[in-house]
């Protein structure tokens, strides 16, 4: 069985924001909602600067799903974490639970009223009929049902951002690390896909040299 995952190779990301733009364009994401964003660590420090593309990682044991008071989250048989916007009450619990800050809330009215949660769908839409108008309006395009991978990863010019079946991604990344001989740490991988009984909660950014 396939297990869909994201991998971001910090050694390759050049902070071009192509993934962010691809996502915005593909799903017609409104202003103020960023399903994907690029985070730069050690900005301006020569040799230590690293950029990472962050979005919902579709965790193995998704904390958002665990804390949702209305149980609007579900997981597809390929491990993609999706939610039903018709049930979401916009409480924001998922935002506090998510280690990646993935859930986004559009401003739904005056006085900062929160709308229904929006997040990366791994380009797999939502519970509405695949490719229907309702699905596109609520969740964006369903590329997965078209046999395509998420637009962000397919658009990535340096292939820093990889998406797809976990086994295939592991093979690609292993070969990469073997050839270049460094950069084996994957940011956020242990947090998202580590077993629940392991204490791997800290992102692997410690491997990045810090300013002394």
């Amino acid at each position, binding site marked *: 069985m*396939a297990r869909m995952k994201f991998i971001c190779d910090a050694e390759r990301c050049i902070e071009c924001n192509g993934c962010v733009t691809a996502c915005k364009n593909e799903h017609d994401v409104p202003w103020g909602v960023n399903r994907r964003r690029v985070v730069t660590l050690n900005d301006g420090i020569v040799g230590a600067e690293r950029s990472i593309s962050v979005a919902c990682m579709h965790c193995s044991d998704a904390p958002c799903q665990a804390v949702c008071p*209305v149980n*609007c989250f579900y997981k*597809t048989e390929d491990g993609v974490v999706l939610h039903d916007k*018709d049930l979401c009450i916009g409480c924001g619990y998922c935002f506090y639970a998510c280690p990646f800050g993935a859930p986004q809330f559009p401003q739904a009215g005056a006085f900062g009223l929160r709308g229904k949660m929006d997040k990366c769908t791994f380009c797999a839409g939502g519970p509405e009929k695949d490719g229907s108008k309702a699905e596109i309006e609520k969740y964006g395009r369903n590329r997965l049902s078209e*046999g395509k991978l998420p637009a962000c990863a397919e658009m990535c010019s340096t*292939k820093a951002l990889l*998406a797809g*079946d976990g086994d*295939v991604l592991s093979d690609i990344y292993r070969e990469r690390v073997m050839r270049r001989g460094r950069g084996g740490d994957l940011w956020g991988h242990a947090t998202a896909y580590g077993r629940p009984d392991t204490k791997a909660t800290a992102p692997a950014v410690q491997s990045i040299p810090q300013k002394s």
Partner: protein
Amino acid sequence: MKKLLISLVSLAALATFAGCGEQPQTITAKPGTSAAKPDDLPYGEGKLYADRNAWQLQLRARADTQNEYKRFN
């Protein structure tokens, strides 16, 4: 009197140590508890890919194109 004293000491000890227990503070999602509408599969009749195998092969081939060592060699 002795019985009462023992009971009181036991109660006091119980009350004192009641807060010392370490309760697990992690929650995990319970499978099958989702209230979301059932989602249709990305493959099947009337879809671009008729069965799971064909769909998976396509996605695997697509994922493989992310490996430039394979693509250019």
